[in-house]
């Protein structure tokens, strides 16, 4: 069962909301050391799939394997502790707190100090707190957010907030990060920066699974692509294969995109 090549696998995943089948017998594998993208039109079941993987809205049928082990039935926090990090389509930050505090909370599941011990032993508690702060500082430097460390999140621009959320996820030292529309709402320069950071995080050995509408982002980043339509997988493959897949073009990309790609530089894919 345990395949070192595969970090995440979904098996015959089904999600029904009353009568509606949102995701229908979905299978795919996220390979280790690859960026995997899930694309498809609105309502295709992409976020539903992510929520099944994280456990926020578990599947009706099927199984989710993380590093070869079934994680179905486990609570959200347990899956996160195993190494599944995520960002949200609509940012979910602790908006009244500073950037550093947000990141520190992201790293807290890794801390071990108990409340009683903290109250009794002043010094080791301080040490742990300092360690957490240092780690937050490192991550902020890594994602280029150090200058915003003491800002209240609510006062930050949208792009900075998205970056903060990514930083908060990184604090939990995930093995796999699920990015739900990372480029949505970003302006072109922010988007470019975000792609660079994702690439940089990926190079440190974190696998990525992303949902994205922006095809430039998808084509730039991903190695594998799964295409969903009405809850069913209609195609799978590398970006080049997906771009020429007739079904994908008719369901999602549209003829216009093909022409644009044909005209555009070949190097893009």
């Amino acid at each position, binding site marked *: 069962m345990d395949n070192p090549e595969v970090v995440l696998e979904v098996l015959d995943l089904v999600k029904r909301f009353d009568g509606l089948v949102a995701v229908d017998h979905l299978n795919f594998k996220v390979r280790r050391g690859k960026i995997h993208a899930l694309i498809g039109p609105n309502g295709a079941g992409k976020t539903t799939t992510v929520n099944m993987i994280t456990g926020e809205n578990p599947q009706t049928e099927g199984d989710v394997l993380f590093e070869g082990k079934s994680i179905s039935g486990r609570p959200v926090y347990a899956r996160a502790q195993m190494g599944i990090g995520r960002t949200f389509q609509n940012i979910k930050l602790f908006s009244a707190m500073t950037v550093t505090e947000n990141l520190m909370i992201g790293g807290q599941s890794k801390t071990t100090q108990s409340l009683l011990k903290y109250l009794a032993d002043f010094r080791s508690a301080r040490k742990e707190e300092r360690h957490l702060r240092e780690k937050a500082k490192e991550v902020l430097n890594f994602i280029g957010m150090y200058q915003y460390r003491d800002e209240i999140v609510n006062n*930050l621009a949208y792009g900075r907030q998205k970056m903060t959320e990514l930083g908060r996820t990184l604090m*939990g030292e995930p093995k796999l990060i699920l990015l739900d529309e990372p480029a949505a709402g970003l302006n072109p320069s922010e988007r470019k920066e975000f792609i660079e950071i994702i690439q940089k995080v990926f190079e440190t050995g974190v696998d990525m699974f992303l949902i994205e509408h922006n095809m430039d982002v998808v084509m730039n980043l991903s190695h594998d692509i799964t295409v969903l339509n009405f809850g069913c997988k209609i195609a799978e493959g590398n970006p080049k294969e997906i771009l020429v897949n007739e079904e994908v073009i008719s369901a999602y990309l549209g003829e216009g995109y093909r022409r644009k790609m044909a005209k555009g530089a070949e190097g893009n894919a």
Partner: protein
Amino acid sequence: MKTARRNQYLWMGALFVFLALVPLFADNNYYITILNQMVINMIVVFGLNFITGLTGQMNLGTAGIYAIGAYTSALLSKNFGLSPWLTMIASVCAGFLLGRGLGYPSLKMKGVYLSLTTLAFSEIVRIFATNLIDITGGTQGLKSIPRFSVGWIALDTNTKYFYFILVVAIAMCLLSIRITDSKWGREFRAVKDNQDAIESLGLDIRRIKIRAFTLAAMYGAFGGALYAHFNGYITSLSFTTDLSINYVIILMVGGIGNILGNMIGSIVVTLLPELLRFLGDYYQITYCILVLASALFLPDGLISLYGKVMGVFNKRSVAEGGE
């Protein structure tokens, strides 16, 4: 941020010093009684602040918790002749068990379940206390609950007792500050800020809420025990839902989630009925109007007024301008 926090500590210290000086100028049993009640309220609200203030989960069962604390310590010390020191510890333990026992089922789910279960729990405690006349004395109450001594000093007067609980309150305040400033305090605030994000960070939201609620129950039960030994007499008539709501009002008026705010709230709300007493028949309605006005115009409590006046909190953002 740092200086604002230091200023708050200074204000807390100043308030405690001020409270300590009051008996020197107003050595009148009536005032001292109010002072005692004020400081006991403070301790209870420090606790309530964890669950309702920081974590944002409405707890309407403080009266029940307070009653459990009061009856535990009163009955054990009166009927079994145990030292009130021991029985007060027993009260805190009862608070702990209560927090766990009540928190687990009611905090498993999101939403208003905690408010409802705590409200119901509080009423159940009151009804039991009213009807188990053989044990609790019912509405007639329990009399001659013993006072105790600290070392060789017997806390036989209300003034001595006041100084004792003032020291306790300072200790509880320091404990609150330590927990609030720790990673646990940060988790509490995070739950209030954005519930949906917590679990995806590998943190069990139920455990966080239960922890906050248990702390509230321990503080509340301790406050109840202190009250029982102070008053020497408790009756089930005191532990009504009104009392629970009163603690929420203290929290609101002072400033939700802020320890200095808790202190200010306890002082103002405990004093208000006494200050308004001259209004006679109009006292109740004036009191309610003032509370309502405070909720409408100062939703973040009196503490926000301090922030506005001193400009301490917004100094940074004003100086640096918008991003």
